[in-house]
């Protein structure tokens, strides 16, 4: 494949201003031609491909391949590569059709794992939840590593698997994948650059891996400084972002002077203008605005309003504390929380909170500050425009184009995880209503204050949501099955196929799964049954795929508990009631959302208006609600849904159920 240069070739090269420490260590492919090479110096062992074709370097600009004005040392260079004005290119294997132009240094020093294995101190700034990052890290694996620290044996075994994987990455040679571009960049040191990736105008990249592929290239843009990092495929980091000890997942976007330290961002995160420190950001964590700090917190499916802030310092003890903000929540402009706090799912935090509160049992809440108190209004965010639109937007905004999607994301809005929380919330409100005397304005629970008058109303809303969920699951099951010839068939369809245990459900950064399944998984890791990261991935995928049936099975159990109906033995009267109640409740729910859409501006409705959301969400919400009537607005489509629902019926054999 490779041969030595001929004398005439050397002569031509020298005439063209080229030189080498030793021409004998410069090997070339058979049909190599020296023409495209000028003013290049070769050192160490160099292998050169054939430079025949032009390549499209950047938009609108094609250039001839070749090596010009560069120092190349210990590199293997593929075909049709352009290396131009590169001060030092050392210890790299370079794929075909790569362009490296106007770059200071692209070097590998010593042995490195290219960012793999770097431990980043997420969630707890003082350490204690170190997350070893690597190029195939998924949100779920990260979650297990960070959250299950109490199980030492599990952690040790999992870390061993990771170390094994990372060891294979160690090398004293880096690679630049085919069709990659490194342009106008100051320095790239100990970085693996994936195929089709674009590094353009960056400042310094050090100790990292840029994963990229043809279907979903990664882009590192102007003035980026990155050290100890992993950037997964389809990501975009630009606009002067400064990232240190940071993991960036697939389809994430970091830019506009964002700075990040000790943080992990998983799939489809967006971070602009602000700052992250020990941030553990699950999928769809979005922070767009200036003066926004996310520190020592765990977030997912989250939107940060401008000026969002937290503190993790206790007076004398240092940066100990952490915060958890469960999926779907938002923080309003200039909101602040003193950690530790635990914010329940799909809640909205506004104002400044110095009292540490825990609203994990009260999902869909508004949390305001009033006279120094953290006042929670539970369930208010259940029937708002913002919540409904959020449920629709995430699947549409999955930017990942890589066929190998690492983070397992369940977009089910009302999942068993959430419904469990709602059930618990309803029970809690009932308990509080019983125990709080009428003379008191507020009931209190784990640092939060709830207006006593809202306890019953909120509980009604929670119960409405549960009823809608149950009805919907049953109805969807029926709809999926097609022709329902009679009640026999109905019972067969409704009978769950998976077994349900009493296990509660978990949200592992997008993977929704029974606790018992995770316990089994952890045991398998401890026992060695799962002996590689590939095994782990397969196991997680299996859990993800089992969701539908397991969730339905859980729901069937719940139907029995709450409605007294065994779905596998359901009578036509019971089915009729379920369908009719579902329709009535769903229409009620949708009408409440419509009401929210009509409401304006004040404390409640601004939430539905994209408050605390990214400007894009605000704009979309605004557009949806405030467009002209002729627009296909959110309101119009919701009204249509109500009409469709009213007209919906089910034919079971000869009977038609659900007529209104």
């Amino acid at each position: 494949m490779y041969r030595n240069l001929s004398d005439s070739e050397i002569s031509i090269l020298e005439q063209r201003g080229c030189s080498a420490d030793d021409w004998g260590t410069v090997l070339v492919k058979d049909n190599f031609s020296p023409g495209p090479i000028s003013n290049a110096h070769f050192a160490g062992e160099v292998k050169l491909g054939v430079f025949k074709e032009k390549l499209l370097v950047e938009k609108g600009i094609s250039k001839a391949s070749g090596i010009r004005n560069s120092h190349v040392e210990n590199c293997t260079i593929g075909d049709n590569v352009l290396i131009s004005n590169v001060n030092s290119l050392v210890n790299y294997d370079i794929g075909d059709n790569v362009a490296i132009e106007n770059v200071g240094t692209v070097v590998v020093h010593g042995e490195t794992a290219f960012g793999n294995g770097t431990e980043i101190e997420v969630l707890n700034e003082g350490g204690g939840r170190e997350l070893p990052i690597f190029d195939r890290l998924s949100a779920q694996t990260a979650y297990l590593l960070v959250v299950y620290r109490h199980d030492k044996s599990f952690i040790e075994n999992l870390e061993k698997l990771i170390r094994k994987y990372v060891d294979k990455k160690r090398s004293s040679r880096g690679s630049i994948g085919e069709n990659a571009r490194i342009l106008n960049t100051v320095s790239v040191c100990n970085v693996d650059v994936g195929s089709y990736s674009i590094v353009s105008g960056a400042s310094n990249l050090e100790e990292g891996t840029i994963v990229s592929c043809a279907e979903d290239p990664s882009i590192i843009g102007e003035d980026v400084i990155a050290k100890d990092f992993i950037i997964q495929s389809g990501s975009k980091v630009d606009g002067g972002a400064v990232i240190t000890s940071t993991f960036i997942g697939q389809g994430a976007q970091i830019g506009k002077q964002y700075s990040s330290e000790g943080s992990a961002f998983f799939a489809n995160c967006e971070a602009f203008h602000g700052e992250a420190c020990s941030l553990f950001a699950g999928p769809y964590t979005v922070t767009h605005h200036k003066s926004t700090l996310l520190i020592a917190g765990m977030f997912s499916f989250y939107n940060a309003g401008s000026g969002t802030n937290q503190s993790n310092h206790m007076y004398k003890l240092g940066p100990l504390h952490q915060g958890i903000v469960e999926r779907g929540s938002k923080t309003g402009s200039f909101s602040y929380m003193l950690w530790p706090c635990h914010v329940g799912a799909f809640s909205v935090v506004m104002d400044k909170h110095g009292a540490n509160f825990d609203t994990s049992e009260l999902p869909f809440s508004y949390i305001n500050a009033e006279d120094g108190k953290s006042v929670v209004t539970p369930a208010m965010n259940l029937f708002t425009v913002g919540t409904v639109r959020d449920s629709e937007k995430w699947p549409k905004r999955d930017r990942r184009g890589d066929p190998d999607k690492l983070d397992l994301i369940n977009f089910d809005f009302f999942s068993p995880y959430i419904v469990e929380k709602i059930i618990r919330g309803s029970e809690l409100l009932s308990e509080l209503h019983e125990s709080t005397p009428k003379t008191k304005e507020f009931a209190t629970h784990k640092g939060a204050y709830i207006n006593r008058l809202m306890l019953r109303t909120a509980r009604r809303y929670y119960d409405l949501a549960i009823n809608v969920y149950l009805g919907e699951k049953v109805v969807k099951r029926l709809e999926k099955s097609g022709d329902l010839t009679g009640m026999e068939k109905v019972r067969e369809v409704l009978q769950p196929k998976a077994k349900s245990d009493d296990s509660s459900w978990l949200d592992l950064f997008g993977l929704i799964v029974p606790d018992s399944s995770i316990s089994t998984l952890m045991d398998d890791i401890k026992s060695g049954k799962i002996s590689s990261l590939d095994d782990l991935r397969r196991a997680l995928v299996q859990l993800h795929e089992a969701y539908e049936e397991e969730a339905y099975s859980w729901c069937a159990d719940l139907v029995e508990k709450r409605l007294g109906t065994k779905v596998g033995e359901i009578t036509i009267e019971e089915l009729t009631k379920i369908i009719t109640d579902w329709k009535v409740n769903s229409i009620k729910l949708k009408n409440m959302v419509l009401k929210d859409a009509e409401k304006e501006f004040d404390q409640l409705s601004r939430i539905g208006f994209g408050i605390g959301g990214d400007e894009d969400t605000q704009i979309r919400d605004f557009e949806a609600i405030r467009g002209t009537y002729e627009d296909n607005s959110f309101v119009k489509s919701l009204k249509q849904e109500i009409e469709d629902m009213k007209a919906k019926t089910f034919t079971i054999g000869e009977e038609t159920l659900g007529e209104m």
Partner: protein
Amino acid sequence: MELSEVKLKVKQVVARVLKTDEADISDDANFIFDLGADSMQSMLLIAAFEEEFDIEMDVEKAQEVQTVGGAVEFIADYL
């Protein structure tokens, strides 16, 4: 319950929830325009009326009521 009693209780509740003087609450006072209730306070008012009169109202319809007088009539229908 007599309508006058309903009215009295309604005003008491409004004054309590909106933290305003009963004397400032006229029969035709508009909750938003005259009494400055936002929609959170509207929710609290509905809950307070329910508790005061021991009724469960259709919240959707209740939210359409705009004035104190309207609230008196709306609640009276449930009694």
